[in-house]
């Protein structure tokens, strides 16, 4: 299951909840991703070097929310192949807003790990 760094899906997890962010990144790492956890403010700069294939963005974050982070990535040509919204809010409005913002998936916390994986 463990693949080389080049084979592995480069995943970036952005969440203001540091515990949740870190542990998801850790889980994805365990599941074979090349996962990195970061805060919303760090995201763009990391992506510029990391070029993630998958971005898992929390939506409700202070100062810069998930939508803004996604827009920042897209505007800088850093859009990963898969853009996933990952939120505690699962209402229809949030979901449709995600589609509008160009997210490929919306996952509701706490998503099953295999779902996350398959999504990757």
């Amino acid at each position: 299951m463990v693949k080389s760094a080049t084979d592995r899906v480069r995943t970036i997890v952005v969440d203001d909840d540091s515990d949740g962010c870190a542990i998801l990144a850790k889980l994805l790492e365990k599941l074979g991703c090349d996962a990195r956890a970061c805060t919303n403010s760090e995201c763009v700069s990391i992506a510029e070097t990391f070029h993630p294939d998958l971005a898992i963005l929390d939506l409700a974050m202070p100062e810069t929310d998930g939508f803004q982070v996604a827009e920042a990535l897209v505007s800088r040509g850093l859009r990963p192949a898969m853009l996933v919204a990952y939120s505690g809010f699962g209402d229809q409005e949030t979901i449709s807003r995600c589609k509008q913002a160009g997210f490929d998936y919306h996952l509701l916390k706490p998503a099953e790990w295999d779902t996350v994986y398959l999504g990757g």
Partner: protein
Amino acid sequence: MKMILISRYLTAVGLVLAAWAFQALVGHNFGEVFVFVPFLIAAVLTSWLAGFRATLLSLVLGYLVVALFYVNPASPLILGKDNVVALGIYVVIGLSTGLLAESLHRAVRDAEALAGRLRVTFQSMSDAVMVTDAQARITSLNPKAAELLGRSEEAVIGLAIDQIYSIRDERTGQEIDNPVSQILRDGLLATQTDHLILLRPDGSSLPIEHSAAPIQNKSGEVDGAVLVVRDVHERREATRLVQESERRFRRVLENMPVGLIAFDEAANIIVWNKECERLMGFSATEIVEHENALELILPDPIYRHKILRQWQERGNSYRNWELDVCTKDGSTRTLAWSNISREFPISGWASWGIAYDVTDRKRAERHLHRLLAAAPVGIYQTDAQGDCLFVNERWCEIAGISRDAALGSGWAEAVHPEDRQRVSETWYGVAPVGKEFHIEFRFLHPSGEIRWVDSRANAIYDEAGEVLGFLGAVTDVTSRMKAEREHALYMHLLENMNEGVSLATEEGTIIYTNPAEDRMFGYEPGELVGRNVAIQNAYPDTENERIVGAVMERLKTEGSWTGDWQNKRKDGTQFVSSSQISALELEGSRHYLCVQRDVTEQRRAEEALQHSERTAQHRLALLDTIYDTAPVGLGLLDAELRYVRINRLLATMDGKTPEQCIGRPLRELVPELADRLEPIYRRVLETGEPVIARELHGTTPADPGNERDWLASYYPVHGPDGSVVGVSSVVLDITERKRTEESLREADRRKNEFLAMLAHELRNPLAAIRYAANISRLPNLSETDFDVAEVIERQVEYLAHLVDDLLDISRITQGRIRLRREIVNTETIVRRAVEAVRPALEEKEHELTLDLYSGPLPVSADATRLEQVCQNLLNNAAKYTERGGRIRLTTRAEGGQAVIAVSDSGVGIPHGLLTQVFDPFVQGEQTLDRSQGGLGIGLTLVRQIVELHGGTVHAASEGMGHGSTFTVRLPMVESTAAETSHSRSASCDHSTAKRVLVVEDNRDAAKMLQLILKAAGHEVTLCHTGTGAAELAGEFLPDVVLLDIGLPGKDGYEVARELRSTESLRGVRIVALSGYGQDADRAKSQAAGFDEHLVKPVDTETLRALLS
């Protein structure tokens, strides 16, 4: 005369002969010239004696004698010169003497003739004439005078006139002065003609007139008088006779039985006889002496002038015209007047008239006219051709036209157009032949009224049998015709009516029944007549008398009786009739008229109806009550949108009583709503379709300014003909409901927000925990770079804290928190709180400034709770302030209060939200990018706790972006000496850890309890069914069992009893967890062996207390 003339000529001849003789005797002694002298003398003598013509003869004869015998007898006619002169003288003297003598002779002759005539006259005068001298002695008198005086002429000559002429006044008998004496004395002419009487010597007397005149001589002296006396005895007698005759005539006239009146030219009445006096009361004197007597008898000037004019117009003679005169007593009489006017020989023009009194006749005529006029039948008179001459008033009244309009053929216009031709033809067919006329027809009045008349007329004939005209009478038979029609109508009615009618005598004998009566009683037509009414009665004999008696009594007193009657038909069957019996007088005797109707069926129907009416009334009363007491507004409006009915509730909504609303229009009662309501009402009125559940929002005059909501339905109200006559409205005041709904919606919205937030807040730690769990299950656990357990612990703690907050707010909201008060110094609390939140502040790099009061600020407070307040305020400041912001906490004493103020440089609070920030679940702007996490209950807890402490909390902000300040004020207490305790809540006291068995079929609830209890350091085992609970408890041996009551299979009570019966579990505390908290529930759980009864959701504080 001839003899006289001859003698004169003979004288002339004789004298000439004498002269001739003388000449012959004397010869020619005197010459030729003197020849003529004798003859001249003869001529003069002749002229003296025999007149002028004899003188001429004498002259001629003298000349002839001279010429023939004395001058030249040969040529007698040739005289010499001397002879010629002589002849001339002869002729001149002879002629002039002849002429002179002639005139002298004539004068003498004339005087003699005059004297003779005078004498004769004097002698033959019929008046007595006496002449006196200046001494009044009689010088002469004529025979008449002598006769008058009764003396001879000779006897009185020379006597003084006084002696023989004695006169007296006839009337007085006084002697009257002799007029001759008067004249002689006074020289004045005296004449007296009246009343003189001459006393004669024989004692008799004569009526005389006398006059006296003086005789004056040439010198004008009076030397005598003439007294002329006339015997007027005969004349007077003649006059007396004439007067007598006239008197007789007058008496005749006077006493003529007709009035006689004469007028002169000036219209003065000159004759007025006794009949006139009698007729008119004025005496003849009054009339004749009156200057304008006509005015007396014709006082009316207009009438008088009319009469006078008629007189003038009618000429000299007219007969029998009527004159209304006024009598002295003022009454009016009518005279028939005939009159003739002409110039009479003596009296001149006069108008003589006779007058008859026709007053009585006229009165009779007028009376007759009035009689005709006032006759109760219409009377008309026509000429022979049938043209109307007269109609009386009654006729006019019947015909409906005026008298003038009726005259001629005008009457036909009054005849009803449909009858006109028939009447006209009949009438003008009858008239020429003078037959009787009889016809019935109608008059049509201009008013449209119709009069039926019976008109009859008979011809009137003159003596010769010719038709003079017709006299007819018209009788108004309208009422008769009406009566006939009515009779026919009544008969028709009687024959055809459904009610039975019978007429009976007082004894009860039926004399009339109508067909309905016969049918009703089952008899042949007329069969009942002659029978007694008793056979119609169905009452038994015993009762009959009483009932009939009562009816008869009633009839006697009231005249009529109305009621139901039990009847018997001919076949014996019975029926009930509604009868009306009335007493009436017919042909002088009492009868009873009975009108009845078979009401057997009707009575049954009525009873049913009455029953249903009672029921309906009952229902109506019920409806009324419901209407008035219904908890909804009910109103009924008519088509003009006026309230016909309104119940109290609806009226109250409009601020009125129902009575004030009735009859008033909708617009007047709710002017602000009318614009919206009226179209609805109209629509219902027009379409007949109800309008259901229409919501309405507005204000009413009753409660202006307070907007209310109603839910109203409008239903059409149909009249008997199905048309919509009104609208019934049902109005529900839903203001409170709307408010409740609104607040519920708001609460629901907040709840949803809260749930979303809660979910969000829960998902984060859950996610972390899940992944931690995932990781721990992964094979390569050897990696130690990540402390999975630590993550889980942290997240669970967060969750527990979350749950605590939730439970706190629930508990505080329900007032179930109990403060553990102690005297604490505010600073202690503040510092403790700052320490607790410092990690969060540091994480967001906020700069916290503490500005603490130097002195003590002792308050009586639950230290834990107050610390919670401060923590929440600080957390709140940290949350809503951008990273690296400034937060300042100040404490101070102010007016006996301890003040804790937390201000920040954060986002601030919109002004409108200042009062709401303390409400549950209210957060700042709800956007993901601004999401600060948390449940929005922190400030709610702050306020609730502060208020529990008797303090206040206040939020202030300059607005968005200007930060905010929360200020808590708590009452200070006297002393801080007691401030020693630093006790913390039991939750942190791990020494009291208990073994807890949670029996709860809701796994999540059980899990949550487990989490909470575990977080508090207790050992927890879960059991999800009742059946295995006791067994598990026997193994686990808990200190406390938290036992849900509503368990599937075996309920909590049963489990409790099992636990209590288990020996090994002696002393265990059994706590009931129930959704029910009533006393009965508590009692029941206690009976089952529970120690405590907690109502879900169980707050952590209670749990802590329970387990400590």
